[in-house]
């Protein structure tokens, strides 16, 4: 091979690299390992982690993932493929993305879905960019202090560097967006769009009645951010009259995996389809007239439009849409509703029992919540979480020294909940 290449050594292939740039030493990295050693290495690392009974949520939920999902997503033909640019040999990928888009469109009540964003935080940021781009001279984006703080942080980063004015509407004493203030800020004009959460960070379902009308009256767009699974039971973005639905879909069959990979979904009305970032799969026919799938509307994307593209996204979370599609296929509408019901009933049971211990109270007692709620912990959040951890329980997510966010799914049994209640009761 070297002879064919006209060189007499591998180094000869780098004759064009100036000597001063050549790495004159070996990498300072460990020696090679056999598979067994690699496995031993990660087993040892794994033992330094502690997997606990998980009452933490805050956007990432421990749901049951049917075994078939891992069997399907490990298929090499799916796993080791690139983006489906050659539709003739990528129908598998294109087909499942089309199914994913169809399912997400149904869940969110929107006309179209893209083929995924990275996660919920970046999906909200991209929704913000989309809304900003829809106004010729840009416009302010309004959002709420009840959004997930990590989503807000990413929106703020993108807004700062892109030059978007992002205004965060404060929350009320009931843990909800100050809706009167939000509506007055919308009416003040210059607003390109509004992003609101449902349920919000505190698990609370906010009432967005009249919000889409308020937005549309001043030609602003409305985006509703929800964890995907909850959409099976809560009023969807489409039902609220929103123009965009965005959020994280980890709850649809994806493992927690210490936060990633998951996927962000982004759906919109047909009117906004050509402003949508990322890939979209469409149905068409081939030469034999059979239904086939292709990447479509690519003129929106960075590899064609370069700096005029709506977004710079290339790789998305492709394989994670397969997790979601297989999960939703197995669950069906009724399964997904049941998953939600178990979480909702479990959360209300647990909140009731925790309050009965006398060491904590429901922070927003008059606000309707789903499967997640905030407790005010009299002995302090740290004392509570430490006592729970001693029992092998991740007792929730700390909001501050006095408040903790607790989530329930179908995965925590009544016994688990009663153990957590005993922890609370033991606090003084």
């Amino acid at each position: 091979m070297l002879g064919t290449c006209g060189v007499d050594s591998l180094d000869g292939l780098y004759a064009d690299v100036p000597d001063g740039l050549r790495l004159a030493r070996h990498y300072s990295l460990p020696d090679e390992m056999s598979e067994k050693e690699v496995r031993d290495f990660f087993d040892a690392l794994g033992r330094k982690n502690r997997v606990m009974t998980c009452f933490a949520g805050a956007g990432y939920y421990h749901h049951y993932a049917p075994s078939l999902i891992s069997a399907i997503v490990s298929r090499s033909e799916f796993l080791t493929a690139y983006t489906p640019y050659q539709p003739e040999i990528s129908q598998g990928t294109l087909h499942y993305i089309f199914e994913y888009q169809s399912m997400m469109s149904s869940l969110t009540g929107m006309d179209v879905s893209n083929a995924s964003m990275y996660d919920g935080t970046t999906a909200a940021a991209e929704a913000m960019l989309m809304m900003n781009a829809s106004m010729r001279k840009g416009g302010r984006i309004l959002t709420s202090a009840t959004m997930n703080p990590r989503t807000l942080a990413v929106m703020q980063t993108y807004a700062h560097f892109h030059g978007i004015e992002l205004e965060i509407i404060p929350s009320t004493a009931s843990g909800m967006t100050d809706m009167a203030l939000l509506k007055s800020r919308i009416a003040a004009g210059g607003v390109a769009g509004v992003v609101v959460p449902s349920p919000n960070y505190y698990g609370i379902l906010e009432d967005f009645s009249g919000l889409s009308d308020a937005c549309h009256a001043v030609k602003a767009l409305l985006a509703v951010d929800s964890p995907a699974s909850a959409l099976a039971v809560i009023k969807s973005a489409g039902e609220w009259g929103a123009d965009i639905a965005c959020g994280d879909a980890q709850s649809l069959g994806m493992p927690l995996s210490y936060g990633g990979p998951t996927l962000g979904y982004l759906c919109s009305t047909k009117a906004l389809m050509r402003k949508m970032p990322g890939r979209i799969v469409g149905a068409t026919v081939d030469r034999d007239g059979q239904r086939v799938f292709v990447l479509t509307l690519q003129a929106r994307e960075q590899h064609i439009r370069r700096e005029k593209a709506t977004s710079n996204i290339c790789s998305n979370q492709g394989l994670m849409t397969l997790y979601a599609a297989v999960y939703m296929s197995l669950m069906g509408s009724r399964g997904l509703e049941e998953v939600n019901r178990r979480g909702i009933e479990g959360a209300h049971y647990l909140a009731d029992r925790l309050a009965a211990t006398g060491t904590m109270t429901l922070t927003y007692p008059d606000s309707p919540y789903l499967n997640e709620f905030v407790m005010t912990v009299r002995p302090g959040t740290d004392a509570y979480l430490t006592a729970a951890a001693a029992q092998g329980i991740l007792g929730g997510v700390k909001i501050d020294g006095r408040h903790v966010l607790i989530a329930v799914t179908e995965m925590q049994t009544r016994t688990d909940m009663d153990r957590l209640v005993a922890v609370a009761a033991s606090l003084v």
Partner: protein
Amino acid sequence: MNRRLYGQLIFELSHPGRKGVKVPDNGVEFAVDIPSALMRETPLDLPEVDEPTVARHYNNLSTNNFGVDTGFYPLGSCTMKYNPKINEEIASHRDFRDLHPLQPSWSVQGALEAYYTLQEALSEVGGMAEFSLNPYAGAQGELTGLFVIKAYHESRRDYARDKVLIPDSAHGTNPASAALAGYKIVEVKSLPDGTVDTDDLLSKLDDTVAAMMMTNPNTVGIFERNIPAIAEAVHGVGALMYYDGANLNPLLGVARPGDMGFDVMHINLHKTFSTPHGGGGPGSGPVGVRDGLQQFLPMPKVVKSAEGSYEVVTDAATSLGSVSHWLGNFAVELRALAYILSLGADGLMEVGKLSTLNANYIKERLKDLYLLPIDGLCKHEMVFDGLADKSTGVTTLNVAKRLLDMGYHAPTIYFPLLFHESLMIEPTETESLETIDAFIDAMRRIAIEAKESPEMVKDAPHDTPISHPDDTAAAISPVTTYRQWLAANEPS
């Protein structure tokens, strides 16, 4: 492939009342009263399917797909190397898989050690001081890198820098990312040999330039030998050098971006570090910086204490902010670390050279039949400008589609934009001589077919599950969901 029986959508296999899984029963029944005005009214119409049907549906779909495990995938600029299976096993290890991102640091010491170890290994390979693994993909890594650059200039109250210089050969992501970061884009011309035109660059450099974005080797697979002079000129006006890691693979064991004068870079773990592409993700795009820029990296960040324990830090005044929910695509990071540990220092030192050997061998053996606009040594990939014999009318697209018939994935086509008929081939280091020779034979056979039966080649592919999808129809009246498909196909 069994398209006749299994070409349906999962919705078309639905039978009301069927379910593919029993939902775990947590044993709680509790009356809950949520106002109905807040709840869903529209019935959900997900498919209702039994488990065996779901299993067959998706398994059969997979047989209509082509992956690295199916065959040779010489897709230029995408580094489609083999994805070792031990990495998959590690990524689904229960002790990592079931960790919640917001667990306290003390309970995730192993995960944080993995993150930190990978961060350090990438710093060594990139010649950088520190990496953040948070960006989810190459494009986001690039965007984050530009945020670092902007945060750096802002920290110096240097607000006049509103331009980013980008070579005209660059991938579309570069200008798209720069625009998203709020910069104006100024293109720098290429010389006939594909490298940056230094004179043109110098004429565009001034104190309104924030950064120069480059890949090296560049998009044509040529090493930019003037890089020290370019870096010096860019630094001379106070701008920073950004390294797009798309083409890092051939430099493994040979050279480091940090030693070439780059200040900020990203790496695509799904290219250089063998994590699977998953049909378009999830990838991972760690961003690295030279000494002096660490304080601008995104949050959260993993820090190591003097005692050797790890902690997640979530806020720092100088940081650019946050670009991800937590610490990025963590399971992808685990795979990359497993790859680095498997190869070790010695193995990684060989990667670049072997990928470059494979590429040059293909180039030399095809350049009589395919037009090679830039002769000489290439690095990990080469670009042909279509067939050498232009009289047949057979285009790069035709060659690509004919390759599908022969059991190969197509190379990258019509990119870079420097040539009309770009055909960009990147073999990677994980292919054997036998595989590469067979691919060369196929390419040569297509060149002969183009002369002997051009119409047959133009009409390719002939032997794929589908052929000649109507892209135009798809774009004119888009059908992107099953519901839209039903509406469009209603019997009138």
